[in-house]
């Protein structure tokens, strides 16, 4: 087991952390940086609860090694709101009732943010496809999809 010092940006702030070579980015965020908003639902890249932005791309952080984060710009759910003002995707998911147990919510919001960054005017199909990697067991998805469409309209 070797340890590596890496430098990366997390939610706008530069972080210098020492991580073992086999630690995932998810574990680094949750246990080294105490950013527990990103969740672990499967450690297998299947459920999307661990989704974060890495250089703007939505990534399953449980499938990425922490050492791969060297030099990268990472955004987690904690970085969506700025100075206490919610991101539009957070506002609309509240309004549309797209949050129940909340465990899939951080991953959903990140995927939604990534979609709107690359496609400000998505069709319903675009939204569905963007969220296809985020599983939800509570809401049935409809209200989450509506909330992303509403966020797009209002951006």
């Amino acid at each position, binding site marked *: 087991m070797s340890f590596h010092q890496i430098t990366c940006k997390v939610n706008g702030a530069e972080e210098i952390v020492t991580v073992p070579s086999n630690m995932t980015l998810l574990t680094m965020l949750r246990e080294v940086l105490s950013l527990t908003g*990103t969740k672990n*639902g499967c*450690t297998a890249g299947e459920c999307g609860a661990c989704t974060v932005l890495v250089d703007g791309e939505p990534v399953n952080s449980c499938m990425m090694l922490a050492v791969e984060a060297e030099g990268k710009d990472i955004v987690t759910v904690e970085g969506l709101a700025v100075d206490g003002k919610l991101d539009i995707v957070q506002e609309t998911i*509240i309004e549309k009732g797209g949050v129940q147990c909340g465990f899939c919510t951080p991953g959903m919001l990140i995927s939604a943010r990534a979609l709107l960054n690359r496609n400000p005017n998505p069709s319903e199909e675009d939204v569905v496809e963007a969220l296809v990697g985020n599983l939800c067991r*509570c809401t049935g998805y409809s209200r989450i999809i509506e909330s992303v469409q509403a966020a797009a309209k209002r951006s």
Partner: protein
Amino acid sequence: MAQADTKLGTFSPVGKSVQRLDVLEKVTGSAHYTDDIPFGNALLYGRVKRSPVAHGIIKRIDISKAQALPGVKVIVTGKDFPNLVGLYLKDKTIFAIDRVRFIGEAIAAVAATSEEIAEKAVDLIEVDIEPLPAVFDAEFGATKDAPLLHPDLGNYECPNFIFPVPGTNIANHFKIRKGNTEEAFKKCTTIIEKKFRIPHVQHVPIEPHIAVAQVEPDGDVTVWASSQSPFAQRNSFAKALGISESKVRVIAPYVGGGFGCKAGVTMENVAVALASKSGGRPVKVRLTREEEFFTNFVRQGLIINLKIGCDAEGNVLAMENTQYWDGGASTEYGVNITRAGGYNSSGPFDIPNVKTDAMCVYTNHPIGGAYRGFGMSELHAGIIQVMDMLAEKIGMDKTEFLKKNAIQGGDFNVTGMKMHPVGLQECIDVVSKEIKMGVKEPASAPHKKRGKGIGIVWKAPSMPPNAGSSSEVRLNEDGSVTVSVGGQEIGQGTFTAMAQIAAEALGVSYEMVKIEGPVDTRYSPYEWQTVASRLTWSMGNAVRRAAEDARKNILEMVGEAWKENPADLDIKEGVVISLKSENTIPLKNMVVYGLSREDDKGWIGGPVLGRGSLCLPM
């Protein structure tokens, strides 16, 4: 029960769509689930050694190599915890002791300084198991030819509404004998016999099971768990360790989905077992997604044999209903679902002759537990289809057939109880109209087909009659209201509903109400379990009573200070007003410190509390 005095005005919170109490935390990532709570460097991680075979005798367990691994602090096996535990039937131990009964059953557990070391240690534990013939079919499992999985069934403790059959694999046999089905079938012109196999499913909450346990030197236990039932869990841990309930504390943060699988106790006992030997260090056990699928709770599979007969006019005269519930290796929870399958067995139909045998059968499958619907989906799937088939066979409109046989107010159900007004026929009419039953409509896409059908179901969820809820209400210096409950926010929105109820009953705005969390059995008032869609009604009534109690105390206090009759006083949007005089006082001015008497000759009042509970007498 006093009638609610609902002051339905423009500000009334009940009946309005409000912003959920928990939603800001959840969208910002600040909501704490069990794995988010920091425990510091003393935290140990637990992993479990599991059986690779479905049924076998444990010949040898060797933990020596595992014990020698640096970082390993605790290893426990079955002989360390021999007590039988279970919610309705005490048929399981925390770890397998002399034999294993399903693939994935816990045989031993390790607590170490990291999850990685614990996992390595688990691999170093050597287990020899002599395989035995296994049971994988519940119908076969109920026969005399099936291997006996629980020879000790006759000695297992259970309440008087569970009927095990010792010497067999039948953990519960629930019977209904209404009328005379043999004679009634002779009068039927049309009879359909069908067997349905309903498969197991797993709840797949996005948050897997997790528990952290800590045992103090004096034996006091604290457990943090993703739990639907902190109080029931407290009782179970106490029984498992052989200690008194008051020595166990369960703290339950937000739950990332339960659907029934977090209602009982399963892997949490492993954390408690490890913590009891870790010298006070907390131990965290979290299931992998793979373990979540088959080592914990699943929805029981069902094999159901139905024989339903009707006359030429479409009156259903007789039903024979034989249910083989695939209970799995332990039926401590599953026996009650079988019971529900039994007394709901006619479906919501008025059938004069019913013969039901609902059996919960031990198999070497994963453990069946509570799953949303508590047996109702599985039970009705076949019944509804057979009703459709009967209608088709006699050439009767299917909706008319349903309506003709749907149970009504005044009918007697299969357990001999008279139905309250039901409104089922009206529901069928409304639904039939809304979906334009009988009108062919195109599918939404060329590769799809569209069909229409109506099914009716009912549910009696098998709760004991003394499943109680309770609540406490505290008023704070700023006029805000703190409501304590024992039920859990698992995503269903219960905290929000309780805040609406408390606000309405007290006379304050919804925004002034906070629900105290996380639920903590040391401080929170008792709640039986967060299951069965019961909280809005049961806990809601407890909250309403507690808020009304606080309201009564306030009005009595203020009434005495103002020398007015409390019946002439009201609370509107956080202000006590008089309907007779000009007197007003904001709640925040008097709910902690009291208020001066009107004639300035002294003081009255003090901190305001309200309490309420619901446990209906029979």
